[in-house]
């Protein structure tokens, strides 16, 4: 690629701005990243819970996603402990949503006729969340840059309406745009006045080094197991209490509305992250693995069902018509 092209390529943060602006202009609410450890943007309640139930939504947010086992101490040019997904949920998807997506590529400087773009079958599945969908990985000159999914089930429940999910791998796209062989060479920002550049490595390398070390070498296995059990116990107790509350027709409306289903979800997410850390530490045998995943599935699917029930009850208690 000629250097003139390079100069024009968006910085990492400009890439994020551009995509957010693009989707905001198409009716998306811009949400901030979820402030809890998640393995993928899908696990944020802005996706996982919002795709449930009947209420339409368009939402977009950048989600730092932690996968402890993928850490490489900052030494591998293509793998990260924590990468950034731009998650777009379109519930229901608009007409010709693929064309809208392609427009977003044009917006970040990808001239469609200058590249080879293919939508290749790739069906997404998150067994622990009882969730799956069908869709594609979008390949740009041989690189997977986006996961495109029509959600079909979540929390083991059929979805209605269907949500379209577009997940951009921001590091990969930035690497592609900037022709960077290493993620750490991606230009994160460029000073508008001096032109001085900060790279991805400048901003994030120390995190990768330290969190790889923490995940692989330091995290205390006994404590992690305890955390997992504590979070699980509390989550299960909340689920039981919620079920009882929602099943009782005499329950107070306000108590139903305020019942912390989302709190239970956060506890389930913490279990999931503890599990991932234990996995990275090599502390989970393959035999145990299946069992622990089933335990977390119970929590997450339980939360999803409770959430749907809560939303249903909230709808029921709304006034019948517009206020006089």
């Amino acid at each position: 690629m000629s250097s003139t092209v390079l100069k024009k390529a968006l910085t990492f943060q400009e890439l994020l701005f551009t995509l957010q602006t693009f989707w905001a202009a198409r009716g998306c609410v811009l949400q901030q990243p979820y402030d809890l450890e998640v393995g993928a943007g899908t696990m944020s309640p802005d996706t996982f819970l919002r795709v449930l139930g009947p209420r339409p939504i368009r939402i977009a947010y950048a989600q730092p996603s932690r996968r402890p086992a993928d850490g490489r101490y900052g030494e591998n040019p293509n793998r990260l402990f924590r990468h950034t997904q731009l998650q777009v949920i379109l519930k229901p998807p608009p007409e010709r949503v693929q064309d809208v997506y392609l427009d977003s590529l044009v917006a970040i400087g990808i001239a469609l006729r200058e590249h080879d773009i293919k939508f290749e079958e790739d069906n997404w599945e998150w067994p622990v969340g009882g969730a799956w969908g069908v869709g594609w990985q979008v390949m740009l000159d041989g690189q997977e840059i986006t996961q495109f999914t029509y959600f079909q089930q979540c929390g083991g429940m059929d979805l209605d309406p269907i949500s379209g999910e577009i997940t951009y791998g921001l590091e990969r796209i930035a690497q592609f745009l900037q022709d960077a062989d290493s993620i750490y060479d991606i230009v994160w920002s460029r000073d508008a006045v001096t032109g001085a550049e900060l790279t991805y490595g400048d901003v994030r390398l120390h995190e990768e080094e330290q969190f790889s070390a923490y995940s692989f070498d330091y995290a205390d296995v006994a404590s992690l197991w305890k955390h997992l059990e504590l979070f699980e116990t509390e989550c299960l107790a909340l689920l039981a209490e919620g079920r009882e509350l929602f099943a009782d027709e005499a329950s107070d409306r306000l108590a139903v509305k305020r019942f912390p289903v989302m709190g239970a979800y956060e506890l389930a997410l913490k279990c999931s992250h503890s599990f991932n850390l234990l996995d990275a530490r090599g502390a989970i045998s393959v035999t145990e693995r299946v069992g622990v995943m089933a335990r977390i599935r119970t929590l997450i699917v339980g939360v999803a069902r409770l959430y749907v029930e809560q939303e249903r009850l909230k709808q029921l208690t709304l006034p019948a018509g517009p206020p006089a």
Partner: protein
Amino acid sequence: MAEFLFEIGLEEVPARMIAGAEAELLRRVLALLGRERLLPESFDPLAGAKSYSTPRRLAVAVSGVRERQAAVSEEVTGPAVKIAYKDGVATPAAEAFARKAGVAVADLKTVQTPKGEYLAATTVKTGRAAAEVIAAEMPKELAAIYWAKTMYWLSPTGQGTSGGDPVRVGKPERFVRPVLWMACLLGETVVPVAFGGRVAGRATFGHRVLSSGDAFDVVSPESYAAQLQGEFVLPDVEARRHRIRKALDRAMREVPGARWREDHALVDAVTHLTEWPEVLLGGFEADFLQLPEEVLVTVMRDHQKYFAVENASGKLMPHFLTVVNIALNERNAAIIRQGNERVLRARFNDARFFWEFDQRVALADRVKLLDNVTFQKDLGSYAAKSERVRALAAALAGQIGGFVDLGALDEAARLAKTDLTTELVKEFTELQGVIGGLYAAAQGVSAVAAEAIYDQYVPAGMDGGVPRSVEGALLGIADRADTIAGMFGLGMEPTGSKDPFALRRSANGIVKILADTGVGLTLEPVIRLASKSEATGIKMTAFFRERLEFYLREVKGQAYDVVAAVMVTNFGDVRDAIARAEAISGVRGSQDFVAVCTAFKRMNNILTQASERSYRIAAQVQYGELQEGAEVALSQQLELRATEIENLASGLDYAGAVLEIARFGPLLTRFFEDVMVNVEDEDLRAKRLGLIAKILAEFSRIADFSQIVTAG
């Protein structure tokens, strides 16, 4: 007569599903048109119909479709004559019938029925307009197309309209991917087929990127393909495949001495991933060629869908070919090449990292790690499985005559599963076994053991080779038999379409290894030594019997009845069963052999009856004791030739033996023409029954010929 065109435009359909769906759509459209009397009598589907597909569309064009269903005349019966006429005058009943039938009262006829005389009328049902019929019937055909996986995109119940965006309305069908458009023309008339929230019109779309992106009208069914080509879509699959092959060849002219590695499945995949395919040559650093070719090819082929490039002697060269879905020019070719090369470099770097990382712990030291890798929760870890396979492989080796390197076999069985703990196998699961074999070779494990490990999962299907050595064959058999026996022991045998542990494939693998290698083993000891209980052994025997039948039919192309005939005896010797089946198929057309088969059916029936009636059957029969010329001749010939047939069969010359048996055809025919078996004379009857029993016993060691289906 008119030309008909139907096209359904879809968001990208999975490549693996397109060919089947294209064929099914064509089949369904022709069935619909035929059923609805919209095709001419002389319709030739090969000349008159054509189907198309790309990732974004399926289409069918049919020429010579009737614009209206052919009229059908039909006789309808009305009221009884005595009710229809009073004193020779038509009653209201007759008038009502005439009105209903659409004829004048004067045109009514009378017919004689078992119940008496009735009125009748010949009505001519005029056909419905083709467009109306197709619009009504086509949606059902579309909805019935089989897809491996389907989805909803419209709201399954049409709900969810409160606030925000309106949900797209329409009947929510499940389909492979969202429907974007439909075009349906009969001649120049639009047929408004409604499906998937869309109604068919005249418009279609070109290439996603290369065309203007706007819809354009199909002028007529005949112009469809040419119009699409003008918008950078080649709708004909064969044309695209041809274009890809030519372009691959052409790209190879840039590299002296190079050729692309033939790969039909990959050509197929990229054909179904592109509407306008072109080919681009890329390269990688020659250093990567130090990595095992298997790893490089897997990355290129399975992960990137690139064609590998090799020299005249088949050695990999540092190039690859990618099939793009865009028109290339100098500028974009450079950009696309660079992008693909960067991706490949990153992937190769990963593979190199894993390859070197894994070598730090030798396979021998990984054996203990297998304790923590579960094979199946009730069957224990892979360490336990490896121990069982070691014992079973050794026991199987004891069953065969030829030389087996027992030390290498044992080492291979011990190390076979250790590659499951390597990073490279976690990354490239499809290379399990292969990677173990490569590491073993690199770590100084004996070549025989390394090769056996490498080949342990071969064959994966019914195509492809078998293990190269007897040790590899024994390891492959022992591994699969252990899995099957373990699962059967737990009651987890496959049922119907459910075979979650792919046990059928495992058993097929064993059958193929026994058939295609000279390992000299039969199924009986495999089942006996692998099964832990008699009950499991019995279930496994039935299972393998069914697998061998499948193999004989599907792989060896043997007819059902031939398979049934040879399975009656000694089926456990796979190669023997194949040889016997082939021998029978070789003569089954001959008149003499048909006579033998017919006679065998009669002989079986006679003996069954005899045993039902408790008739005595003589154990010994001398031809001198018989009366008729036909039976004496038959008995004589049997004595003369039985030994010869036996010798041919035990010399495995089944073709010769079956030919000899076929020569009995005329004798047997004459026997049944001239001789009555069930005579009153008890002694003579016993002798005749004895003769029949002897023939059956002598000849049935090769097959039960009574199973062969004969005409008439």
